[in-house]
């Protein structure tokens, strides 16, 4: 091959490498832009009072988002209580029965559920819970969010446990340790970091969901701890305030966005740290 051809090829190589680098940086821009705008608009309304006070009526200055924070925490707890054990158990089943009809169906169900638009899940929760209970409630919102968490946890658990060598399970069974203890005391602890990471990621995912809450948790301008009454949530508050005509409510929406994004960011960071720190070496 003559020199010119080689040089042309090397130029193409460099060109390709440059493209890869440029697009890598370009894909970071949206996140930083979002962070920049939210911080610029939201930081000014952030204060201690903003976190612990209730919203004030239109026209009054100040007021906070305490009801939405409490509501979001309630919703996340209601969602997690059934979704975490169910998801982890289903994930265990999948990693224990890699093939088989039930596994196939379960995997399919998890995939489809993960792809189901959140508004549809909201409608389902509305039909099942809101209508049968006769009113909007934190419970119905939590159930909708729990359904959204479930497939993420199932897949995370399965993927984590699949990486644990079979020899570990055999070591335990060969000591005469019963199957359920082998799973609970040997296999699950070895996969704890991956499973916890999956759970945190799924919480981060549902913390910002708005659509399924619109006709379940509904929103509530007051503080509410009762799970069969409507509650406010951060994304609901942002939605309602940002679409309102009042500029002071807009700034509260920016502040709430700031809080929400921080929560999601922190959850993701903690998940990363746990994935690294708790990593088990085989």
């Amino acid at each position, binding site marked *: 091959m003559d020199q010119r051809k080689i040089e042309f090829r090397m130029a193409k190589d460099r060109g390709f490498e440059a493209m890869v680098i440029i697009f890598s940086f370009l894909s970071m821009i949206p996140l930083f832009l979002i962070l920049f705008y939210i911080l610029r608009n939201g930081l000014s309304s952030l204060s201690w009072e903003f976190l612990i006070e209730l919203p004030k009526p239109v026209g009054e200055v100040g007021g906070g988002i305490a009801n939405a924070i409490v509501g979001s925490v309630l919703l996340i707890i209601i969602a997690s209580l059934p979704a975490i054990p169910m998801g982890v158990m289903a994930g265990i089943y999948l990693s224990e029965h890699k093939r088989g009809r039930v596994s196939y169906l379960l995997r399919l169900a998890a995939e489809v559920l993960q792809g189901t638009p959140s508004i549809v899940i909201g409608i389902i929760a509305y039909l099942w819970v809101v209508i049968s209970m006769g009113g909007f409630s934190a419970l119905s919102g939590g159930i909708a969010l729990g359904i959204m968490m479930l497939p993420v946890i199932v897949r995370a658990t399965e993927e984590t446990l699949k990486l644990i*060598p079979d*020899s*570990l399970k*055999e*070591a*335990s*069974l*060969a*000591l*005469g*340790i*019963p199957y359920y*203890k*082998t799973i609970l*005391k*040997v296999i699950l*602890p*070895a996969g*704890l970091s991956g499973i916890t990471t999956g759970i945190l990621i799924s919480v981060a995912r549902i913390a910002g969901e708005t659509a399924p809450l619109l006709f379940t948790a509904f929103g509530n301008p007051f503080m509410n701890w009762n799970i069969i009454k409507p509650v406010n949530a951060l994304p609901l508050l942002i939605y309602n305030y940002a679409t309102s005509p009042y500029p002071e409510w807009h700034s509260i929406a920016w502040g709430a966005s700031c809080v929400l994004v921080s929560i999601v960011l922190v959850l993701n960071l903690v998940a990363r740290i746990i994935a690294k720190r708790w990593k*088990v*070496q*085989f």
Partner: protein
Amino acid sequence: MEGTVLRAVNLSAYFGDNRVVKGVNLSIPEKMVTTVMGPSGCGKTTLIRCFNRMHELIPGAKVEGKAYLREEDIYALNPMVIRRRIGMVFQRPNPFPTMSIYDNAIAGYKLNNFKLSREESDRLVEESLKKAALWDEVKDYLRRKGTFLSGGQQQRLCIARALAMNPDLLLLDEPTSALDPKATAHIEHLMTELKETVTLILVTHNIAQAGRVSNFTAFLYLGELVEFGPTELLHTAPKDRRTEEFLTGKFG
């Protein structure tokens, strides 16, 4: 020969319809090392996994025939009881990664919910680690994770973990195949010491290893027990042509 620890009578093992162990009759003498030797895929590992009922864990696996542990029918007892009495060491060292060296050594008790006093568990840990010739190397690091040890040390930790249960019989499934020569020599030496107190069955495809450590050798070929006898005799004057061909390196 003091007596027989384990006896297989017409034992066959299947993966689905595939018969990988074919009607094996074998008596394992007490406090000796018995080697199960043969080329890869001859059913050595499957055979010993029938003894502690690990074979049946594989979907589609099946066992026919009888096996007796000290004249008790292995397949009439609960597998968990059998596995506490027949220890097993695997090809790759597999200490429990979330547990300390200390907890690994007594994992069989802890996870089986045997209540041990502090002194008892201390004594058991020391005893079994000493039996596995690991105590001197790890006695100052008992609280560290077992996975920090070298491969050879990990394998000895696994031996200690099995010995702690005080088994009637210890199955070693190619325990040195993942280890370097030095660690292998260490484990081989350990096996010759261990036979003073416990009966060992060693699976290996390494003829030299079988010769170095074992008192009796069973030669398995294509799932059939071809020959069984004192190691020296079998190595110097094999009765069967297939044994001789394997020993002289014609196949395997």
